[in-house]
C-alpha cells in the first residue's frame, strides 16, 4: 500500500504547529497503525529529519498511552479499538490519512502528536481512592457484591484513561472518563464512605482543568475503545444530585 499522510507537526508547546504531508510507500496491510508510523520515522531519521513524536507503550490496547485523531475519528475508523490495535488493512491503497493530536485546552500539545494528560491525574487525585485497611488482603467473600453491580463497576473500571472521549466530544468534556472513575467505586460497598465527597471533588477537578460541560451528545461512548456506556454519566449525575442535596450534612465538605 502507498499512503499519503498529513500529520500535525509542532516542535514544542510554544510552536504554532501545522499539517505536513508525507508519502509512505510499501506499507503492509498487516502492520499496525503505529508500526506504519515507525516506518515513516525510520525513513525520516535516515534522511536527517526530525521523527514524528507520538505516545505509545504496551501496543496491545490496554495501557491507554496511544491516542491519535485519525481522519477525524478518535483511535481511527474501527470501533472499540485503540490506535495501536488498528491495522492498516482498514485503509486502502492511495488513501490520504489526516493524523492530529487530541484537541483540548486541558490536554496541551507537548510535541507533534503527544499531549499532556495530567488533567486526568488531577481528577483521579480528587477522589479516585477508597478508605481501606492496610495489611494482608481481606477475605474476598467477606463483603458480598451483587452480580449486576459488580458487572457495571467492572465495565467502568475498564477505562484506560486514553482521552478519546475528550477528543471526540464537541464540547471538549471529559465527563465519560470522570463518570467511569466515579462509578467504578461508587457501585461497590468498599467505595461507599467517600461516595458523595468523591463525586463532587472529581467533577470540581474536571471543571477546574478546563474541560467543557456534558450535553449528552454520545460522541464519547461511540469512540471509547473500551465501550464505556453513556449511561455511566447518568450514574454520575444521580450521585452528584444526591451529593449536592446532602452536602450540608457531610463532614469536611
Amino acid at each position: 500500500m502507498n499512503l499519503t499522510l498529513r500529520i500535525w507537526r509542532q516542535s514544542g508547546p510554544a510552536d504554532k504547529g501545522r499539517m505536513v504531508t508525507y508519502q509512505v510507500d510499501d506499507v503492509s496491510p498487516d502492520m499496525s497503525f503505529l508500526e506504519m508510523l515507525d516506518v515513516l520515522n525510520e525513513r525520516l531519521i535516515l534522511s536527517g529529519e526530525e521523527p514524528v513524536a507520538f505516545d505509545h507503550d504496551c501496543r496491545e490496547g490496554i495501557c491507554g498511552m496511544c491516542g491519535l485523531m485519525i481522519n477525524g475519528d478518535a483511535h481511527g475508523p474501527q470501533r472499540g479499538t485503540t490506535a495501536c490495535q488498528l491495522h492498516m488493512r482498514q485503509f486502502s491503497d492511495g488513501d490520504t490519512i489526516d493524523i492530529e493530536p487530541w484537541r483540548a485546552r486541558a490536554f496541551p500539545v507537548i510535541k507533534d502528536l503527544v499531549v499532556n494528560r495530567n488533567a486526568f491525574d488531577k481528577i483521579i487525585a480528587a477522589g479516585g481512592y477508597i478508605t481501606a485497611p492496610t495489611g494482608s488482603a481481606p477475605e474476598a467473600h467477606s463483603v458480598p457484591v451483587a452480580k449486576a453491580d459488580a458487572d457495571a463497576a467492572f465495565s467502568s473500571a475498564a477505562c484506560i484513561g486514553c482521552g478519546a472521549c475528550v477528543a471526540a466530544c464537541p464540547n471538549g468534556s471529559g465527563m465519560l472518563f470522570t463518570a467511569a472513575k466515579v462509578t467504578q467505586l461508587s457501585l461497590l460497598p468498599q467505595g461507599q464512605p467517600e461516595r458523595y465527597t468523591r463525586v463532587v471533588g472529581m467533577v470540581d477537578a474536571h471543571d477546574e482543568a478546563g474541560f467543557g460541560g456534558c450535553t449528552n451528545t454520545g460522541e464519547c461512548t461511540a469512540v471509547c475503545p473500551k465501550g464505556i456506556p453513556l449511561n455511566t454519566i447518568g450514574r454520575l449525575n444521580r450521585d452528584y444530585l444526591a451529593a449536592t442535596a446532602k452536602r450540608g450534612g457531610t463532614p469536611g465538605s
Partner: protein
Amino acid sequence: MAVTGILLVLFLVAHMLGNLKIFTGETAFDHYAHWLREIGTPLLPSTWFLWIQRTALLAAVLAHIGAATVLAVRARAARPVRYAHRKKVNGSYAARTMRWGGVIILLFVIYHILDLTTGHLNPEGVPGRPYGNVVADFAPERWYVTLFYTLAVVALGFHLRHGAFSAFRSLGQQTPAGERRARAAALGFAVVLCAGYLVVPFAVLTGLVA
C-alpha cells in the same frame, strides 16, 4: 438546562392542548382565550395570573438561554485549536443542532408573540378574537407564514427529541434499558407535539377551520 426545559415543556403541552380547542368552533375557542385572562379570579384581579405565568416563563427562558450560553462558552474555551479534519461519529442530528436550533426557536417565539399575542404582524390583529386572527394568519394566500411555522415547529421537535432525553439523563436516568425507554419517549413526545402544533395551521390552510 433540564429543570428550566421541563417548565417550558409543561407550557408547550398546555399551549398545544389549548390550540386544539380551535376544532370546537369559534365561540368555544374565543371563550377559552378569554378564560385564560380570568384564571385565578376572583382570588386575583383579572389577568394577574396570566402575568404571573408570563413572568415565570420569561424567567425560565432566560435561565435556559443563560445555562446554554455557559455551556457554549465553556465548549469553545475547552478546544482553542480546532481539528483540521473532524467527523461526526455518533451522528445525532438533533444533538448537533441544539444551539442553533435554540436560536431559531427564540426568533420564532418573538415573531409568534408579535403575530398572535400583540397582533402587530397579524393581518387582522383584533384583540379578543383569536379565532379570526388564526384563520386570517394561515390563509392559503399567506402560505409562506404556514411554511415558516412548519419549519419552526420541526426545529422545536428536533430540540425536544434531544432535549427531553438529555433532561432525563441530567436528572439521573442511569440504566441502559431506561436509556432506550427515555430515547423512545423523547422521540414519541417530540412527534406528538409537532403533530399537535402543525394540525392547526394545516387545518386552516385546507379549509377545515374557516
